[in-house]
């Protein structure tokens, strides 16, 4: 099967750059408003905004490289990451000072630490391992993290008794380092697959499946007559509204469900076209699929925009209680991450599609990437082990038992087992190359579930973050 050559789209490329540029300008404007409103230049919120702007700038520059192929964009992206890291460090220091303890006690604080570690490791990977484009994958993750942070409760909360322990700091520091190393290994594994000449169509399939899965998860909130269910938000207490212990109150935003359904079809289109191309052995469908990806990005952005707008304003009815309730972006961090994550994943695919040759030139060769991925996991695995051990020791001191089969503990153990599996396969069975890369990607998926999924889907003792 001849490999289809997709021609550049200079017109649409420019549209992308303009779009990204406008978003950054918008963000800067909001930041300016915040400074004016609070009268305080170096507040934590402003520093975080600055970090967001810089990370977004770095991400945009990587995309700009994707569109225009100008290599200097990468250098500027690196500088932007540096700037973001400095702002982020400022935010961390500010938070630490205000709270009187290192930022580890809530999801907001953990994300702050995680994003900082991610940016730091990105810069280390660029300098030490010479993988200059690793930011293309890690920066979007950092951006999603910072956006999430903007929505979560950010007041400094004093620590409840169980969290007042040095072991907390040890455990969470280890967790942040371990998860950041895993994120890095994911990025490297993806890059290995690029260098290993995995066909671009397969990346299309993977991105498409990921986006379809994401929207399928979003569509679980679809209400029969086209409404979309979100959790209600109590603006006064800055918390979700609960009907009773552990049971959240949902409100239905009318018509948003139809939009999500439409976008679901749009993101499913590339997958369908890909399958058609395979079945009919016709590359013309691949071209259509790639155009469909571009269209789906536009529609996904539309879905995001409407979601943002509808959740900010308006009070909505609920099927479970009388009256109208407000909601807030902070009540739906998962949905927001999913929407943004989907857009980013597809943008990265387009970057690969349009600039694959340049990427292949800029990245180290496949063998080197394979080894670097392995080395990164060799760092991540001991950190994971120590994190679990520190957590167990702390649990023993706080709750009298070092292992409770709590969902978070259990999934941390599962993560550990998956990476142990990777090491076993590599060391004893000599698994290299693609199989190892897929394993590393699986490992990171489990890490993400342990970090996010367990918190939002399976509550338990670990209710702090």
């Amino acid at each position, binding site marked *: 099967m001849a490999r289809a050559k997709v021609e550049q789209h200079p017109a649409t490329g420019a549209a992308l750059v303009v779009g990204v540029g406008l978003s950054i300008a918008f963000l800067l404007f909001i930041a300016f408003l915040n400074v004016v409103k609070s009268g305080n230049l170096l507040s934590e919120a402003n520093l975080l905004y600055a970090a967001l702007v810089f990370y977004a700038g770095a991400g945009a520059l990587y995309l700009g490289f994707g569109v225009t192929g100008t290599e200097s964009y990468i250098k500027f992206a690196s500088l932007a990451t540096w700037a973001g890291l400095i702002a982020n460090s400022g935010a961390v220091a500010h938070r630490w000072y205000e709270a009187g303890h290192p930022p580890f006690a809530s999801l907001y604080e953990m994300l702050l630490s995680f994003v900082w570690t991610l940016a730091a490791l990105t810069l280390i990977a660029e300098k030490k391992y010479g993988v200059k484009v690793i930011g293309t994958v890690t920066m979007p993750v950092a951006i999603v993290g910072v956006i999430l942070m903007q929505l979560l409760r950010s007041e400094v*909360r*004093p620590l*409840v*008794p*169980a969290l*007042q*322990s040095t*072991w907390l700091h040890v455990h969470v520091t280890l967790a942040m380092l371990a998860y950041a190393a895993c994120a890095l290994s994911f990025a490297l594994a993806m890059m290995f697959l690029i260098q290993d000449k995995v066909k671009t169509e397969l990346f299309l399939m993977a991105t498409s499946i990921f986006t379809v899965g994401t929207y399928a998860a979003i569509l679980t909130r679809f209400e029969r007559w086209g409404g979309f269910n979100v959790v209600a938000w109590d603006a006064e207490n800055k918390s979700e509204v609960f009907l009773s212990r552990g049971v959240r109150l949902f409100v239905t935003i009318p018509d948003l469900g139809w939009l999500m359904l439409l976008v679901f079809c749009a993101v499913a289109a590339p997958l369908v076209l890909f399958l058609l191309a395979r079945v009919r052995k016709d590359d013309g469908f691949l071209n259509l699929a790639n155009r469909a990806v571009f269209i789906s990005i536009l529609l996904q952005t539309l879905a995001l925009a409407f979601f943002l707008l509808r959740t900010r304003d308006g009070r909505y009815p609920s099927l479970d209680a009388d009256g109208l309730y407000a909601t807030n972006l902070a009540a739906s961090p998962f949905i927001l991450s999913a929407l943004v994550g989907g857009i980013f994943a597809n943008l990265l695919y387009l970057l690969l599609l349009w600039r694959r040759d340049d990427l292949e030139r800029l990245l180290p060769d496949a063998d080197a990437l394979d*080894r670097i991925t392995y080395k990164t996991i*060799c760092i991540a*695995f*001991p950190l994971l*082990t*120590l994190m679990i*051990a520190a957590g*167990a*020791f*702390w649990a*023993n*001191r*706080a*709750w*009298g*038992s*070092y*292992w409770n*089969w709590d*969902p978070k503990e*259990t*999934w941390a*153990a*599962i993560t550990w*087992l*998956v990476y*142990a*599996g990777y090491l*076993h*396969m590599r060391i*004893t*069975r000599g698994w290299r190359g693609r199989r190892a890369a897929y394993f590393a990607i699986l490992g990171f998926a489990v890490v993400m579930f342990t970090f996010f999924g*367990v918190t939002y889907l*399976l509550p*338990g003792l670990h209710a702090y973050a």
Partner: protein
Amino acid sequence: MDLSFRKSSRKIWQTLSSIKTGVILIILCVIFSAAGTVILQRPMTDPEDMQRAYSPAMLRFLDATGLTDVFHARWFVALLILVSFSIVAASVERFPNSWRYFARPYKSPDETFRRALTTQSHIAVEDEEKGLGAAERALQKLGLGSERIVRTNSFSLFSERNRISEMAVYIVHASLLLIFLGGIVDALYGWRGFLMLTPGTASNQVEMNNGSSKALKFAIRCDDAGEETYADGSPKKWWSKLAVMDDGREVSKKEIVVNDPLTYQGVRFYQATFGRTGKLVSLALTATPANGKGPAQDISLGLNQIAALDPDTKVQLAEFIPDYVVQDGRVYARSNDVVNPAVHMIVTSVKNNSAVNVWLPEIPGIAENATSPYVFEAKDLKTGIFTGLQVSHEPGQWSVWGGVILMALGLTLVFYVTHVRIWVVPVSDGHGHSTLWVGGSANRNRDAFEIRFRQIVAEIEKELKPAAAAAMERQARAVAGTASIAGR
């Protein structure tokens, strides 16, 4: 028949010790552990919630298969035991070879080995002795050191570092087994329970999770307990002053807080919760005569206590409700939390032969405060507090922590300590030309080792040069000398 038994037991052993089995067992552990986090588990979930979440048929199925308490189900424990066996079998199967490799270093490589080794180099030397000497010095300079291995006509060099690294993987697996052992011991012999004390009481009865009661050989007495809160009311610190009474004697004392337990005879007492019993300890009031004649009195009442306000009037504290709610003209207690306290007092007057029901706060329709000869104002309310202690005995935890430390050591050896071997063997090709065969091997981080090997070879060559230069110098001097002799 004996042969077939041996054959089948050999087969079983091979299956158990194979990596494939290990991987399959790990995958099964993962699947069932994940199921245990997704399916509601009985010990932690209210039975009502369980019935709400699953249909009766589904619930029967889940209960029957043990999926509602996965982590304590027999088959899950059996799975973990099987994993331990597989680790043991895999280690035992591979250990003899590794031990041979570890205990008997391969110091003198033969020709086949030399031909086959990937990392090798040849250095031409004019003299075996000098060449080996140079190599020794080079290895010394690079911090590697070497020993001379005697061969038939000459000797060769052997240098190695970190041989322990070959045993690293066994250390890691042994540590896993230690952890499992600790877990099993705790599952069999450990226990956890709860003990609630109010200040001034002592107890040796621990309430276990299954409802039964366990009597300790010693008692715990609570002398005092307290709570500090932040400005918004969330708890900042819970503390209890505890004393251990063994045989009636006070043996040890400690003020415990969350994260800092009291330990005695292997039993640990953790500050788990703190609360108010909702029972009244004392209420301080001021009573002022309703008709304005007479001074205000300060009194303090406990439950059912009577105080005489004057020769004629008495007041009794009849009821204390920590969290009151009025329904159908009656006052009920909604909870034990001191949220909405109400006191019911009965003021009796001998002269009027009356009893008035006074309520603070004045509950409309129920309180008769207007007809009371005294007006009461509450000044201070002291309610009972209790401290909740988590009690646990975990004899196996030392094995677990030992295993953790051993695993840290093992992982360090696995990832960061490389077993490096260098050989230098003089080879002569029979025509009087000698070469030094230099070979190297490392059990991990081979790319870094390649670089190191190049360094070693370069260093050896550097060491050889002065010898060559010295030789040339001697030659030059000899020539000059001959010339001078010839010249004389």
